[in-house]
C-alpha cells in the first residue's frame, strides 16, 4: 500500500511575519522557511505506518517553487521513500493544488493521502477536503488518531465539542491535527541518505491543470496592534481596575 503526503514550504513558525511596505503581501524574501508543521506530522504518520508494515511506500509531493526541494529533502530525511516536485511560479491556491494532487493520485494510485490540516501561512484548511471532493473519497479531517484495518481507516477527529470517530473505506484522505503524533528529527546519517533518494520534477503546466488563482489579493495590512497595558502590584488593584475602569465584572 502506497501513501502520498503533500508537504508545503512555509515561513518558519518561529518567525513573526511582516507585511510588505507596499501592502502586496507578507515578506518572504530572506526569511527562514521550513516545512509546514502539520505536514511534518503527516509525514511522521505515514512513515510510522510503513515502519509498522501497514504501508509499503511513502511518496512526498510539493507544489511550488524550486526551493520546495529543500522541504522535500527534509521529508525524505524523516523517512519518506521518494519525492515529486511540481513546479509552479506562484504559491498556488488550494483549488489548484488539489487539482494537481488529483492528477498525481490518478497516476500513483495511493491507498491513502495524508495532508496537514492547514498550512500556517495562508491558514486555509482546505486542500485535503477539496482533494477528497475531486476524488469522491472519504475524508478524515483534523485527525488525532488513525488506525488501519480490513481495508478501512478509523479516524478520531478533533471537533468543536470533543472528539468524533469515523470509519472510511480506502482509498481515503486524512488531514493531520497537532496531536496525531510528535514528528521525529531527521538524524545526520538520514539527511545524508536523503540526498540520494529519488526526486522527480514536473511542471504544473504539463499536468494540464489551470493554475490561475480565483482570488485576487487586493491588499494585505497589519492588524491594529494591541498596546501593552499596565502591570499591577496586587490582586486588590486588579479587581478594582476590572470593576471600575474596564467595567467587565
Amino acid at each position, binding site marked *: 500500500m502506497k501513501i502520498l503526503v503533500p508537504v508545503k514550504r512555509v*515561513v518558519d513558525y518561529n518567525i*513573526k*511575519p511582516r507585511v510588505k511596505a507596499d501592502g502586496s503581501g*507578507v515578506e518572504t524574501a530572506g526569511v527562514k522557511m521550513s516545512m509546514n508543521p502539520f505536514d511534518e506530522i503527516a509525514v511522521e504518520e505515514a512513515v510510522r505506518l510503513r515502519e509498522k508494515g501497514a504501508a509499503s511506500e511513502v511518496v512526498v509531493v510539493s507544489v511550488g517553487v524550486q526551493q520546495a526541494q529543500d522541504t522535500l529533502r527534509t521529508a525524505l530525511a524523516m523517512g519518506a521513500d521518494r519525492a515529486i516536485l511540481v513546479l509552479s511560479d506562484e504559491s498556488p491556491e488550494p*483549488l489548484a493544488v488539489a487539482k494537481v494532487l488529483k492528477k498525481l493520485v490518478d497516476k500513483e494510485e495511493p491507498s491513502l493521502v495524508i495532508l496537514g*490540516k492547514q498550512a*500556517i*501561512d*495562508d*491558514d486555509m*484548511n*482546505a486542500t485535503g*477536503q*477539496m482533494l*477528497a*471532493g*475531486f476524488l*469522491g473519497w*472519504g*475524508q478524515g479531517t*483534523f485527525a488525532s488518531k488513525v488506525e488501519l484495518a480490513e481495508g478501512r481507516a*478509523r479516524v478520531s*477527529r*478533533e471537533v*468543536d*465539542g*470533543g*472528539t468524533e*470517530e*469515523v*470509519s*472510511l*473505506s480506502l482509498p481515503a484522505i486524512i488531514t493531520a*491535527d*497537532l*496531536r496525531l503524533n510528535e514528528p521525529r528529527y531527521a538524524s545526520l546519517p538520514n539527511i545524508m541518505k536523503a540526498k540520494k533518494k529519488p526526486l522527480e520534477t514536473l511542471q504544473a503546466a504539463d499536468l494540464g491543470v489551470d493554475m490561475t488563482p480565483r*482570488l*485576487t*489579493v*487586493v*491588499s*494585505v*495590512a*497589519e*492588524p491594529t496592534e*494591541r498596546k*501593552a*497595558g*499596565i*502591570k*499591577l*502590584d*496586587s*490582586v*486588590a488593584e*486588579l479587581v478594582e481596575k*476590572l470593576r471600575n475602569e*474596564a467595567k*467587565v*465584572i
Partner: protein
Amino acid sequence: MTALVLLDHEGGQIRKAALSAVAAATKLGDVHVLVTGDAAVVLAAVSIAGVSKVLHAADARYAHDLAEPLAALVASLAGGYDHIVAAAGAFGKNVLPRTAALLDVQPIPDVISIESADTFVRPIYAGNALATVRSSDAKKLLTIRSAAFDPAPAKGGSATVETLPGVDSPEVSRFEGVQLSTSDRPELESARVVVSGGRGMQSEEKFHTLDPLADVLGAALGASRAAVDSGFVPNECQVGQTGKIVAPDLYMAFGISGAIQHLAGMKDSRVIVAVNKDPDAPIFQVADYGVVGDLFEIVPQLVNALKK
C-alpha cells in the same frame, strides 16, 4: 441575491457561531438556512431573525453531518444561491471546502469582514496580517469567524420550511461515535469571560485551581496548546491558530507565555489580563492588566476578592 447558510448544531441546539454566520449572510442578501437531521432544530431555525426559508435535510444519511453526503447535497442546491456560508468551526471547515471542489470554486475561509458581494477580509499568518481578497468565482463559498459578527437574534423571524429529499453520493464514510465534553460552563467561543491556563498550570489536577475562578465569573475554560498536549484539559479547550478563536469581554491568561499561535486565538478580546511569574513573558505585550507572580498564590486571592 440569496445566501445559503449551513446551520450547525449540537445536542439539539443551534451553535452561536452559526447565528453569527447568519448575521454575516444577511449583509449579502436574502438568507436561507440548511438544517440537517434534528427536527427540533428546524423549529428553532424558523424564528431566527433575517431567515426567510429553512431547508430541512431530514434523510438519515445527514444525521451525523458526514462531509461526503452533505457536500453532495449542498452542491446540488448551489444553483439557487450566490453565496454559501458556514461558521468557521470544525463543521464548516470540514464540509465547505469539499463542496467548493464539487463546484470548482476556491473557498474563502475565516472571513472577518464583508466589503462587498465579492470582496472579503480574512486573517492570514495566524492573524499577523489581514488580506483583502476578491473572488472571481461565480459563487462564493465562505466560512465566517464568529468573533467578528454579532449573532443574529434567535427570535423575530418567521421562515417557511421545505423538506429536502436525499441526494446520491458515494458511501465512503461511516459515523462511529462522538465523545462530547459535558460541561456546565458556557461555550468557549461565545462566553463573555474566558479563564485560560497554560503549561504553568503544571498538571491536570492543578488545572482545577482555575475552577473556582471560572465559577465566580461564570466563565468558560480555555487553554494553551501546551496545556492540552500535556493532557491537563481536553483538546476542545485549545485557544489559538489551530484551536478556537475567541473574543470575549474579558480573557484571563494564567501561566501562558503568549506565543503568536496562542495570541492568534485571543488577541481580539476586549480586555486581557495576564498572570505570569516571568515579567518578560510576551503575553504582557498584549495584556491590558498584568500581574507578575505565582498563579497558585494569585488565583485563590482573586477568587476571595471577587466573592467580596
